[in-house]
């Protein structure tokens, strides 16, 4: 029987199966952060249980942490309590490793998992965070869970779940110069929709995906959830193995050789069948900009804001009209006529070293436009920050008028002080343009790091390839 990568990952973790097909799935890696874990630890405590396998837990504080004035600690008392609650829970219950607030290696959970080698090919990886799909870039089965399931994994090292349907998203050809993994995944979501992957695990494949770096693959898998799929994944290859080699928690010596031999099998068999297949032509993908309040509301940068009156489906028409009203946009406006107030470069989608290099390449020797009130660069982790500083990227950003901050989730979801004010418009490298996501009344346009930097320089959206 020819099996997909998803089949292989799922089947190799099944402890037992109920009569209705519900599987008890073993979890290798459990990533924990401060927002979705306190109630799970409380549940554990109330039931008098202990974590099943402490060595599976990798924890950090990222959602609530400030990105400046670290010497002043966390000023918001409610945020501080949540972070201190995680500190206390890890002290009581333990972890393989914990990167608390102020630690040099602290950062976004989906950045530090891969960069420390805590995320490895072939693993099941879960976290109380929907962007856990990121880790699927390593040929891992990775997906977000709710807090009850966080408690379930802590207590049993397993989850109860049914196997999802399989979807192949094959991207043939090559991305054009200046077109990135972010543009590709936005274009995919634009076509299949935010519910296109519901009930599915997506494998991203094809020559354009093979050509992506691990950072690019992480960006694509990160946004699988924005296409409705809990899990996105990419088969293992030399790019995967080269990235993992030498990371702090990667296997070494004879174990490394055994691991690589196993990991090489983490591909879909030739001729394996998928429940659904979508094929894309990479060469046709242009830099993308979202115009609405759902990631599927996206057009190429040379496009225009759509006209709701041209939509026949009433729910869709109403949705478009509501989105335009919220976004303060008129139908048929060219995307390049839209000016921005703030720019955010960061988040678990686009805060890795390669993202910062791409943005810095655009910012180098230029200045942030005068109408842009704040242009923020938030590295994904302390390690990314140190690497960027060693390459001088912080100086490039600062010289151009960007603020260079401490790592964290920051303005992706605005749980800390980094946020949009009502009516402010933002070019953002994050993953969600939902109403209020970056601050109540804030207006988010999702773009790639290079496009965000270009918007900061021009003060409006421009095709980064045509930036003068």
């Amino acid at each position, binding site marked *: 029987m020819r099996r997909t990568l998803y089949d292989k990952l799922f089947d190799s973790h099944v402890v*037992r199966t109920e*009569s*209705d097909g519900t599987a*008890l799935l*073993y979890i*290798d890696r459990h990533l924990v952060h401060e*927002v*979705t874990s*306190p*109630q799970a630890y*409380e549940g554990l405590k109330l*039931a008098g*249980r202990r974590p*099943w*396998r402490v*060595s*599976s837990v990798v924890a950090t504080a990222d*959602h*609530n942490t400030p990105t400046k004035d670290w010497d002043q600690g966390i000023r918001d008392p*409610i*945020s501080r309590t*949540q972070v201190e*609650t995680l500190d206390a829970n890890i002290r009581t219950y333990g972890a393989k490793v914990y990167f608390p607030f102020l630690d040099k290696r602290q950062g976004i959970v989906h950045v530090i998992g891969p960069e420390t080698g805590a995320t*490895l090919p072939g693993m099941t990886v879960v976290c*109380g*965070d*929907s962007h856990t799909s990121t880790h699927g870039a390593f040929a891992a089965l990775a*997906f*977000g*869970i*709710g*807090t*009850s*399931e966080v408690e*379930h994994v802590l*207590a*049993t090292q*397993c989850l*109860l779940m049914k196997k999802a349907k399989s979807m192949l998203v094959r991207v043939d050809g090559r991305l054009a110069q200046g077109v990135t993994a972010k543009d590709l995944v936005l274009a995919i979501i634009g076509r299949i929709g*935010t*519910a296109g992957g519901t*009930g599915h695990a997506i494998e991203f494949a094809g020559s354009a995906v093979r050509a992506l770096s691990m950072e690019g693959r992480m960006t694509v898998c990160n946004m699988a959830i924005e296409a*409705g*799929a*809990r899990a996105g994944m990419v088969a293992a290859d030399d790019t995967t193995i080269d990235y993992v080699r030498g990371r702090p*928690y990667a*296997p070494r010596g004879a*174990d490394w050789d055994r*691991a690589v031999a196993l990991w090489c099998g983490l591909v879909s068999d030739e001729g394996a069948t998928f429940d659904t297949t979508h094929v894309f032509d990479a060469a046709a993908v242009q830099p993308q900009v979202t115009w609405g309040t759902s990631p599927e509301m996206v057009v190429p940068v040379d496009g225009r804001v759509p006209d709701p009156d041209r939509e026949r489906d009433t*729910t*869709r028409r*109403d*949705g478009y009209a*509501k989105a335009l009203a919220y976004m303060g946009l008129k139908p048929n406006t060219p995307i390049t006529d839209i000016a921005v107030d703030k720019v955010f470069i960061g988040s678990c989608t686009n805060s890795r070293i390669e993202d910062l290099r791409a943005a810095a390449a655009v910012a180098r020797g230029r200045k942030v436009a005068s109408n842009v009130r704040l242009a923020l660069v938030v590295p994904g982790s302390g390690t990314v920050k140190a690497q960027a500083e060693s390459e001088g990227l912080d100086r490039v950003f600062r010289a151009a008028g960007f603020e260079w901050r401490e790592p964290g989730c920051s303005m992706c979801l605005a*749980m800390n002080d980094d946020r949009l004010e009502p009516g402010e418009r933002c070019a953002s490298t994050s993953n*969600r343009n*939902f*109403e*209020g996501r970056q601050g*109540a009344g804030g207006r988010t346009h999702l773009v790639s790091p290079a496009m965000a930097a270009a918007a900061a320089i021009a003060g409006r959206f421009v095709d980064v390839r045509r930036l003068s």
Partner: protein
Amino acid sequence: MQPFRLHTGVVVPIDRANVDTDAIIPKQFLKSIKRSGFGPNLFDEWRYLDHGEPGMDNAKRPENPDFVLNQPRYRGASILLARANFGCGSSREHAPWALADYGIRALVAPSYADIFFNNCFKNGVLPIVLGDSEVSRLFDATLAFPGFSLTVDLERQTVATRDGSMSFGFAVEPFRKKCLLEGLDDIGLTLLHADQIRAFEARRLAEQPWIA
């Protein structure tokens, strides 16, 4: 967990697709370390005219009279009628906690986001999937008849009007149904298989010691 068997309640319609969990419960309320108390902030940005923050006295805040939850005919509703892809976005279980705390016991929609769907079952909230045309008929009826209510019978897997003029069957996975009917703690159920988990784990960690 509160069991779910039979429930009759007033239906409130949220007539838009892709309602995300940021809309259901905005991020500032996720700073709580408790499971309860989210109900007053359900749909906070749509429901109130001012900006909500944790610790505010919600009873004193200005309500948005245009939002359905605030309209007298839908007060006390316990069944939420929605469009496709309800609950998309973040994995925050605070979304079903807020719905349950508000008093919502069942949802009816053409589809839900996967993580949200799963989270509902863990909190005694039943997410029912009906076809597009069935959901549209229920929207029409809800808007036409003030106080329109439905009865959900999980054992029989039906959702129906009291007079029986509309009655729809729905699917639910047998294992989820059993857990909801009996209000079972699924951690306790899983731990019944602790020996099997231990054996699986021992084998896996022996073969791939780098996982530990």
